[in-house]
């Protein structure tokens, strides 16, 4: 994929793409894989990172950027899987996600909790979006399942829309 035209972008605008997941867990690696693709595009004003999970030190980075896109695997099964789910690009503001943080039994956070952390501690939260890519298997392995691999093209299209602010 060729780098996109970025002539509209001003130097001060920073967009952050965060791919979440584990590349050794089959379809869970789809987020990091796409984030690494974005990094390889070398777009000015765009920072991209692949992380195994969201942790609190990301909050100041969120507070410092204008827009953020979280890319995550979305485990579909049963009804969802039979409906051949496609990648979903949604504004996090529009989603009615739980405002509560996840159990403190765990070390990970959620996009919504991280945004709240950014706002609560640093007084700012960026415009936030979530790209969820259907995942069909999370077993140990470095390859995406054929069904998830097939979603890479529409996922890249959604990414392009977001980066071009067409979303």
């Amino acid at each position, binding site marked *: 994929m060729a780098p996109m035209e970025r002539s509209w972008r001003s130097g001060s605008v920073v967009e952050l793409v965060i791919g*979440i*997941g*584990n*590349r*050794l*867990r089959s*379809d*869970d690696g789809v*987020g990091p894989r796409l984030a690494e693709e974005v990094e390889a595009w070398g777009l000015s004003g765009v920072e991209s*990172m*692949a*992380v*195994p*999970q969201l*942790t*609190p*030190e990301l*909050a*100041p980075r969120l507070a410092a950027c204008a827009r953020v896109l979280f890319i*995550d*695997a*979305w*485990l579909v099964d049963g009804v969802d899987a039979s409906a051949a789910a496609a990648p979903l690009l949604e504004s996090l503001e529009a989603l009615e996600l*739980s405002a*509560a*943080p*996840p*159990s*403190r*039994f*765990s*070390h*990970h956070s*959620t996009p919504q*909790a991280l945004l*709240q*952390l950014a706002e*609560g*501690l640093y007084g700012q939260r960026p415009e936030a979006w*979530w790209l*969820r890519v259907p*995942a069909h298997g*999370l077993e*140990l392995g470095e390859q995406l399942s054929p069904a998830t691999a097939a979603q890479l093209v529409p996922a890249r299209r959604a990414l392009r829309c977001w980066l071009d602010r067409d979303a």
Partner: protein
Amino acid sequence: MEIPNPETNQPRTVLIDPVTRIEGHAKISIHLDADGQVETARFHVVEYRGFETFCEGRPFTEMAAITARICGICPVSHLLAAAKTGDKLLAVTIPPAAEKLRRLMNLAQICQSHALSFFHLSSPDFLLGWDSDPAKRNVFGLIAADPELARSGIRLRQFGQALIEALGGRKIHAAWAVPGGVRAPLAEGLKERVLGQLPEMFAIAERALALFKQLMDTKLGEEREVFGSFPSLFMGLVGSDGRWEHYGGGLRIINAEGSVLVDGLSEDAYASVIAEAVEPWSYLKFPYYKPLGPEAGSYRVGPLARLNLCERIGTPRADRELIELRQRGGRVVSGSLYYHLARLIEIVACLEGIEALLNDPGIEGRHVRARASVNALEAVGVSEAPRGTLFHHYRVDANGLIEKVNLIIATGQNNRAMNRTVTQIARHYLDGAHLSEALLNRVEAGIRCYDPCLSCSTHAAGSMPLQVRLYGADGALVEERIRG
């Protein structure tokens, strides 16, 4: 879920099911006897990890990168244990600068991991109170109560993460440590940058220490006695001169009275003193000290164990804190609530260690990797992860392909202690008729003392809630509680 039935005099079971996909599946069950008293409690891990099998057939040179990717929580620990195992398969002594750089990364890792555990996962319990609204007893409640403390935790995390990234490259799982050494020497300018940040980090750690010590002395008296306070063995690495150690040294095991059972043991001989028991209700193994058997031989690892095992830390600020810890808890501290205090002391030790390493001209050496072919077919590597001692044991063929892998992780070694901790807390707080918030909060907090990591994991969107169920004597569901 076992159904209570007093008429048949059968045991009853209360099940607490905290599950998030990210760190594997786990649940807690509390087993009651016919009189409604807590008989025992179990911390179950119900997801098979299977990493050892996944690694078979791969070149051992890939193990550092693979095992680091397995765990999103402490990748550096796996990276170092794998690299150390690889060193021994090559049969090389790594360049002095490489060892100093590996040590530097491990100190950064311990520092940032402990910061997450204390500031964001555990401090809301201490500061906001066990019985405060669970919806507020979290990092957001902490922000409201003490935003500077919350920001401080993030600053420490950033400091450690930035140092790891500066050493190993931007990606957290970069295979920077390799068999024979590390891939790159110390980057220009990094030393000055890190040293410049240290005063702020010391101030953060010392403020947290002062706060937590005050809480331990005033508000947490009961918890000190109830949260995993029992005699046990402790195991970890100790330097040859009795100093606190996190990378080298030998294995030491002490008992609850401080008597040394094993000292200076090479990791190569770990199997001569450690065996792994299995239980049908958990995929997590239960390592134990062989001569005493699975129960009496169970031991604890991690920050508290390391501080119990060493004679001294070897740096002035941390040694002062170690003396205070022993004044509070004794020479061998048995209460698991002290794990939190030990974490804070280790943060200070890590900061002092980072300062000393960066001021050592030897760390700037440019020769950082020894190269060789496979010269041994079996090796064991060990490092101290934030949560405790981590063993990697590989057997390879003549081409260096992995034939067999055994990983002994810190959380597994604390497994029996976590079960005992939950049992102790349940016995103290379960009233037999109601699964109270007070109990749930404290059971969770008891487990958090060990900062367990079952990571190994996936992070697909969505998570499962904490599910708590209580069944009545007639087998009917009396109460169900779900936490998001």
